């Protein structure tokens, strides 16, 4: 049994509030042969500057330090790529550092940027993330990703990271999904929803108008996961500018408060020992006493079915932002839907639903922009950008892209950034005739989860409109 000390469970207390001022992103694609990585990074930066009516040169004058998220040097065949990007952005002589935490790299980059402002080190920072996954064949890409598992104990086993995750999916499927056809359909519904939302996003690489049957008939990757249950492999960049309050209001009249927290767990799932479930503010100590009775095999926590890192990121971040019940207190979320089943697992880890009941978030229609059962707005829409299934997973950029997307909803500027025909044309993409505005009306608070592999690192980022802060609990 693992126990945590009070010191380890201390809720972070920042020295001063931090604000998201702007953000931007490039086009995302499976391959972008016409552009070097620095061109994509500059595309993202220029979009961020234009979003607040600044030139790139004007915005750069405010930046004091830089945080660069780039998961895999191997993919780009360029060590210290961060230095190259920093140079191409013309940001010398500012201090900069590279951050890599697997799939959570984007979120971790925001975490570092957030702390730099909160501590007083910098008043304005750049968080930029990217990935270039198109310069090796897919099977070599899979080997590189598998190299992020334990190279002696896991990587030689098939050199396929999806497999290391699929054993967790299998356990959740059998214990909490009870191998029910209805659960399998709920998984498929997530793929249909997110790929469908991607159709409204000109940046998105994997838009698809598909049905549950299409997902359930797609090729098996590792049962119960099928091809359309799995996320994309991508190229692209995203960035965010974080500031202290004074600088934020110099740059814009509408900055958003940002909170970021992180959790971790063993790199190998094999090493996970039992522990009591750390409780979120909307859970009670007795809540899970009968979990093993209701779901035989589900009493081992976190075992192969829960992500402790996600639970701990939410544990810290909810209390930093005053969130008690995410479904009530938040207006939208962007979750790390690397696989449809891990999306369901995350609903439980971050308290949208109790452990064992994640599927009801989808089945209730709460996760939709418009609830398909009621025709009314979904209670907590998720992954309106298309998520990792439909938009992209350019690893170092993903967590930043999610956060920028949430910001655009809270700023009420989602349609402006997704509807413009010139952007669709510039990206060489066809805007669908049934393009729909997915702006969440009245959005004031949102959450992004950035997650690494089988759960070694997870970050939670909460954006809050300053006029709609919650009391810290």
């Amino acid at each position, binding site marked *: 049994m693992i126990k945590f000390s009070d010191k380890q469970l201390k809720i972070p207390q920042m020295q001063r509030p931090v604000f998201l001022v702007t953000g931007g992103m490039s086009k995302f694609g499976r391959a972008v042969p016409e552009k070097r990585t620095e061109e994509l990074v500059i595309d993202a930066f220029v979009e961020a500057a234009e979003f607040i009516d600044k030139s790139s040169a004007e915005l750069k004058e405010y930046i004091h330090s830089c945080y660069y998220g780039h998961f895999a040097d191997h993919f780009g065949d360029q060590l210290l790529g961060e230095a190259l990007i920093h140079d191409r952005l013309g940001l010398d002589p500012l201090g900069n550092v590279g951050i890599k935490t697997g799939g959570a790299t984007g979120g971790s980059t925001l975490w570092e940027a957030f702390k730099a402002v909160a501590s007083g080190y910098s008043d304005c920072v750049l968080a930029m993330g990217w990935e270039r996954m198109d310069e090796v064949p897919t099977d*070599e890409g899979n080997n590189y990703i598998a190299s992020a598992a334990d190279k*002696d104990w896991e990587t030689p086993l098939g050199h*396929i990271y999806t497999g290391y995750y699929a*054993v967790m999916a299998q356990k959740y499927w059998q214990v909490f999904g009870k191998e029910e056809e209805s659960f399998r359909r709920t998984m498929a519904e997530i793929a249909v929803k997110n790929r469908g939302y991607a159709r409204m996003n000109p940046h998105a690489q994997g838009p698809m108008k598909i049905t549950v049957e299409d997902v359930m008939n797609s090729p098996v990757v*590792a049962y119960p996961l099928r091809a359309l249950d799995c996320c994309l492999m991508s190229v692209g960049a995203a960035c965010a500018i974080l500031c202290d309050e004074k600088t934020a209001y110099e740059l814009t009249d509408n900055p958003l408060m940002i909170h970021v927290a992180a959790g971790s767990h063993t790199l190998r*799932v094999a*090493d996970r020992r039992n522990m009591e479930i750390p409780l979120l503010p909307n859970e009670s100590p007795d809540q899970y006493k009968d979990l093993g009775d209701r779901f035989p095999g589900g009493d081992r926590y976190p075992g192969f079915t829960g992500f402790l890192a996600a639970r701990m990121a939410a544990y810290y971040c909810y209390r930093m932002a005053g969130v008690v019940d995410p479904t009530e207190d938040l207006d939208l979320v962007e979750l790390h839907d690397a696989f449809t089943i891990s999306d369901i697992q995350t609903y439980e880890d971050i308290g949208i639903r109790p452990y064992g009941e994640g599927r009801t978030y989808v089945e209730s229609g709460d996760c939709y922009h418009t609830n398909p059962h009621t025709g009314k707005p979904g209670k907590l829409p998720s992954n309106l950008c298309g998520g990792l299934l439909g938009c992209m997973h350019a690893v170092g950029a993903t967590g930043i892209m999610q956060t920028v997307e949430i910001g655009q909803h809270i700023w009420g500027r989602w349609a402006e950034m997704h509807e413009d025909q010139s952007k669709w044309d510039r990206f060489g993409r066809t805007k669908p005739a049934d393009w729909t505005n997915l702006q969440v009306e009245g959005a004031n608070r949102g959450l992004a989860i950035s997650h690494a592999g089988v759960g070694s690192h997870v970050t939670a980022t909460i954006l809050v409109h300053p006029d709609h802060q919650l009391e810290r609990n």
Partner: protein
Amino acid sequence: MSTAERGKVRVEKGRYRLDGKFHYGYPNDPIWNEDGKLMGVTNPRDVTHVHMYGGEAPFFEGLGKGKLLGTCCDNPDCEADGSIFIPFRIHCPDCLGKNTIVDMTDTARKGATVHTFMTTERTGAFNTLPKPIRFVNVEFEGVPTILMGYLSVGKPEIGMKVVPIFNTASPTYTILDLSWVPDGTNESEIPEGFTF
């Protein structure tokens, strides 16, 4: 680069002794688009990395001898005192004391069950396992951790009793020297070179 040319390493008096080729470069090729415009170049090369097992070496050497080794924290002041770790951990994750090596072979033969599994036809580059790959995550009685490996015979199921087999004939000294088969499997069914 031929197998004979490929780099070999020995350690003598605490230093690496390298023989043969550890890297080999090839001429690059241009990449053109359909309009004859230069888009980039290929960068072909072979590289052999050198990797030390350190304190885990007994585990990987043990597999070739038909032994499954774990470790145990025996620090009486540590909360993990008595905990057995398999995967083998050199140091206790709680007190960071040096763990004691324990032979888990008999425990694995008597009481190993499949905690979870997956089957896939997909692999990454450099895979050497036959497809479909059947991963099994194996739990042992009294052990808090769950070891990942691969099943060589049969169809995996949660709760299935399995026993270890070892590549003792020509060990690779990697985790691939350990595999699992359903309890009751005949010797004639297991892969060539492996023994119970």
